């Protein structure tokens, strides 16, 4: 399975990853709030991730790490 890790320390909840994800599996967690007052992004359906890394490519805070199966 491909894995997308979003670091809550870096994430500012800008939503660019969510907009870029072709599978639409990233959302901003409106309940969580980090210590800067942001709602960080999270992957809601990791199983459908294609590992395309488009989310990471547009993330302005280099908050996303993408791992792909072999």
């Amino acid at each position, binding site marked *: 399975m491909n894995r997308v890790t979003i670091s809550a320390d870096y994430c500012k909840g*800008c939503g660019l990853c969510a907009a870029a994800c072709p599978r639409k599996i990233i959302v901003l967690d409106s309940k969580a709030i980090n210590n800067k007052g942001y709602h960080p992004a999270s992957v809601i359906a990791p199983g459908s991730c294609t590992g395309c890394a488009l989310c990471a490519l*547009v*993330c302005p805070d*280099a908050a996303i*790490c993408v791992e*792909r199966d072999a």
Partner: protein
Amino acid sequence: MVVFERPRSLSPLPFHYCPGCTHGTVHRLVAEAIDALEIERRTVGIAPVGCAVLAYDYFECDMVEAPHGRAPAVATGVKRTRPDCIVFTYQGDGDLAAIGTAEIVHAGARGENITIIFINNAVYGMTGGQMAPTTLPGQITTTSPYGRNVKTQGYPIRICELLSTLDGVAYAERVAVSNPKNVLRAKAAIEKAFRYQTEGRGLSIVEVLSSCPTNWGMTPVEALRWVEEAMIPCYPLDVFKDTGAKGGMNK
């Protein structure tokens, strides 16, 4: 297999930029280029005055903070005395295209062998959203509250086109970081701009159309749409000069 992670040349510090500000994206691309060319150990970056003033904290190479607009002169001082170093400046549109006009033009005319990363976000970000030389006609800013009136406040400056008239400029390309495809193009351009320096070709500049959601009063997603719909028509994405291309293309 990790297909994407923070580049090594980027420090672990979180950026101070606003949510969705593409300064961060460009920082990452610069760090990726430095990684790819394995030049971190001999690179010296010059930070501007502008939102990217703290860039010195974000790159894992030696850094100098320059006075507003003078980064190309500071870079000249470093490069001429340490020719083995790879020297780049990172400048905003107020920094490079307003107060620093003379410095960038003359670094170009001299063919300084340096790399310029130029962030065009059509506004003065750091000082709170004043008009920049690159502000679009009609665009509202705090110092063009009725929309930029070209008759009294002037026309946008197209820096790549202007610098391409100079013999010392080796490479000038305009890119945008508005969607994944454009980010990939920007990445390639930035890497080329650094590679040209390692090859001693002269001054390379990559102009990056960038967003300022905060001062534009837009969400980050809206802001990137505005880059594509409003900025690109005024600032076409293109390679304006490339002395390294086949036939030494020189538009």
